[in-house]
C-alpha cells in the first residue's frame, strides 16, 4: 500500500510542476505585478526597486525555480500586498478553519442524506415515491445557488428570535469556535453563524447527488450478483445494504473525493455572501486587490490539496474494491 502511495505521489510531481508553471505564467501575463502594486503614480525608479526586491527582474525560469524552492521548504512568509503586516502563511492558516467549518458539515450531511434518499428511490424504482423524490431533486438542482442564498438570508433574518438568548440563524459573518485558538470564542455563536450556509450548501448539493447516487444504485440493482444473493435466500434489505451498497461505494467515493477540493475553493459563493473569511473569500479578495503573493500562495496550496484528494481517492478505491488491489 505504501509503495502504491509513493508511486502515485511521484507520478503527480510533474503535474504539480506544470500547474505552478501555468499559475506563474498567467499571473505575469495579466500585467506587471510591480505596477499593480505601486499604482499609476509610481516612478520608474520605485518600480525597478520593487522588482528587484521581489525578484521580479530575474528571468522567468529563475523565478520559477526560486518559487518552487519556497514551496518545497513551505516558505510562505512573503508579506501580503493588500493586508499590511500579514504573511501569506498567516492569511492561509487563519482562513482554513472558517472554510472547514462550512464545508465539512455540508459534505457529510449532503452525502449521508443523498445516499439514503437514493436508496429509497432505487428501492421503489418507477413507483410514486421514486417519482416524487426525483421531481424534488430536479427542482432542487434547477434553482440557482443565489436564490437559495437570498431567500435563506431573507427568511433566516426574519425568523422569530428567542429573546436575547438564542438566534437560530445568523445571516452574515463568522466567529471562531475553538476557545484554545481564539480567546472568548463561543461554540454556540459558531453554530449560529455556520447553520444557514451549511443548510443551503446541503440543499444545493442534494439535487445533483441524489440523482447521481440513485443512478448508481439502479445500475447496481440490475446486476447478476443481486439475483444470486436473492437466490441464496438473502432479504431485500440485506441485498441492498450489504451486497449493493458495497459495490456502489466505488462510484460514490469517486464522486465525494472529486468534490473535496471544490469544497475548499468552491464554497466561494457562500463565503462571499455570508462574509465568512474562508479560503475562497480570501482568494477572491486577493485577486481583486492584485495581492500577488497571496494569489500565488493560495493556488499553490490548492493544487496540493487537489492532488492529495486524488491520491486519497485511489487509496480508498483499493480498500473498497479488491480488484484494484492487485494491479
Amino acid at each position, binding site marked *: 500500500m505504501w509503495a502504491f502511495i509513493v508511486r502515485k505521489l511521484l507520478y503527480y510531481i510533474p503535474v504539480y510542476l506544470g500547474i505552478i508553471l501555468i499559475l506563474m505564467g498567467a499571473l505575469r501575463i495579466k500585467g506587471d505585478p510591480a505596477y499593480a502594486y505601486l499604482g499609476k503614480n509610481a516612478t520608474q525608479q520605485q518600480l525597478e526597486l520593487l522588482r528587484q526586491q521581489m525578484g521580479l527582474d530575474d528571468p522567468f525560469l529563475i523565478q520559477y525555480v526560486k518559487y518552487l524552492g519556497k514551496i518545497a521548504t513551505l516558505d510562505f512568509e512573503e508579506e501580503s500586498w493588500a493586508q499590511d503586516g500579514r504573511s501569506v502563511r498567516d492569511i492561509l492558516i487563519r482562513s482554513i478553519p472558517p472554510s472547514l467549518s462550512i464545508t465539512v458539515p455540508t459534505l457529510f450531511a449532503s452525502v449521508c442524506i443523498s445516499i439514503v434518499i437514493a436508496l429509497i428511490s432505487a428501492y421503489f424504482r*418507477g413507483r410514486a415515491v421514486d417519482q416524487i423524490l426525483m421531481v424534488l431533486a430536479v427542482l432542487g438542482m434547477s434553482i440557482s445557488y443565489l436564490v437559495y442564498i437570498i431567500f435563506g438570508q431573507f427568511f433566516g433574518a426574519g425568523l422569530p428570535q428567542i429573546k436575547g438568548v438564542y438566534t437560530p440563524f445568523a445571516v452574515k459573518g463568522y466567529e471562531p469556535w475553538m476557545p484554545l485558538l481564539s480567546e472568548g470564542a463561543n461554540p454556540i455563536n459558531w453554530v449560529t453563524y455556520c447553520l444557514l450556509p451549511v443548510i443551503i450548501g446541503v440543499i444545493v448539493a442534494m439535487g445533483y447527488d441524489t440523482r447521481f447516487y440513485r443512478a448508481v444504485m439502479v445500475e447496481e440493482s440490475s*446486476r*447478476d450478483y443481486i*439475483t444470486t444473493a436473492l*437466490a*441464496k435466500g438473502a432479504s431485500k434489505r440485506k441485498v441492498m445494504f450489504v451486497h449493493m451498497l*458495497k459495490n456502489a461505494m466505488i462510484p460514490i467515493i469517486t464522486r465525494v473525493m472529486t468534490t473535496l477540493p471544490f469544497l475548499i475553493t468552491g464554497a466561494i459563493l457562500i463565503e462571499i455572501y455570508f462574509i465568512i473569511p474562508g479560503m475562497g473569500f480570501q482568494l477572491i479578495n486577493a485577486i481583486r486587490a492584485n495581492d500577488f503573493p497571496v494569489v500565488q500562495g493560495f493556488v499553490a496550496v490548492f493544487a496540493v490539496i487537489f492532488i492529495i484528494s486524488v491520491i486519497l481517492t485511489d487509496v480508498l478505491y483499493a480498500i473498497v474494491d479488491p480488484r484494484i488491489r492487485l494491479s
Partner: protein
Amino acid sequence: MTDKTEPILRVQHLSTSFKTDRGLVTAVDDVCFEVMAGETLGIVGESGCGKTVTSKSVMRLLPEHITRYGKQSKILYKDFDILAAGEGEMRNVRGDKIAMIFQEPMTALNPVFTIGWQINEALKYHTKLNKRERRDRAVEMLRLVEIPNPEQRIKEYPHQLSGGMRQRVMIAIALCCEPDILIADEPTTALDVTIQAQILDLMNGLKEKFNTAIMLITHDLGVVATVCDRVMVMYAGRVIESGPVHDIFHNPQHPYTQALLGSIPKRGRKVQGAMLPTIPGIVPSLWELPDGCRFEARCPYTDAQRCVHEEPELAPGPDNRPVRCHYPIGSEKERPAKLTTGVTG
C-alpha cells in the same frame, strides 16, 4: 438409488405475465410439468422461449410489482404453495430447498466479497452452524466441486478465479445447504467446451451424492443428451413436447423438436453444401403471437389452413407423449404437402 417416482416440484398451468408500458405481455403460457426427486429435467428452447421466466417463477425471483401469475397457476414444492407464499417464507425456500445457478459465472458472484464470505452467507441463512463450522463447510464444499487448495481459495475474490472456477463456486454455493432441487439456467453456455464437460460431470456427480433433482435450462441439445432424464421443449412460452430424453431424440413428434435436432452438428454427417441446417426465421414476438400454432410461420409442414387459425392442444401424440401439433410426426394422419411458406432468413 433414488426414488424417481415421487414428484418434488409440481408446476401447474403456470402463466407468467409482465406489466409493461404497452400492456400485459405473457412470457410463459399455461406450462405444466413435474420434477421427480433426484431426476434431471431438461428445459430446451431458443432464446426468448420462456425457459428462464419459468425457472425464475419457481424461485419467485421476478420483480414482484410488474409480474402477474395466472389465476390457475400453481407451483407446489412438496406441499408448499410457492406462488401463495409470503416473501419471508420464500426466503427460507430459496437457497435451502431450491437453489439456482446462472449462466454468467463472471458476473453472478459479488465482486467485492470473498468466495468464503459468499458461501458462508447461504449457510448463515439456512443452517444453525457456528462460524467455525460454516468455514469448514465452505472449505469442504469447495473441495467437493474440485477446486484445488480450498483453504486458500476461500480468502480470494471472484476476479482471481477463472470462469470455470467461478461456476464451480456457484455450484458450491447452491449445493451447500443440500437443496432438493437445483435450477441450472444455462450453466455451461458461457464456458469453454472442455470446461463445459467438466462442469456437467461435476453436476451429475453431486446430484447423485446429494440426491438433488436438477432443472437444467439450456438450448444445447448436446448437453441435454449427456445429463438429462426427461426433456421438455418450449416454444414462445408454450410447452410443445415433452418426454424421456431417449424418446425425444429418437422419435421427435413436433416439427420444432425435429428441426432442433437437425441443427446439431454431427461428426461424419455429410451435409449438402456443407452448411449446417438451421431453422429459418425467429421466435415470434410475444406482442404479435399468431392465432394458430406459434411455430406455424417457420414450420416446414404447415397446411396453411388449420395451422394458421387454430392453436393445437398439448395432447398425447403417436409416441404416447404430449405434443402440441395438429400433425405430429409419425402420426397416421396425413400430413399436408411440404409447403415451405415460412419466413426465411
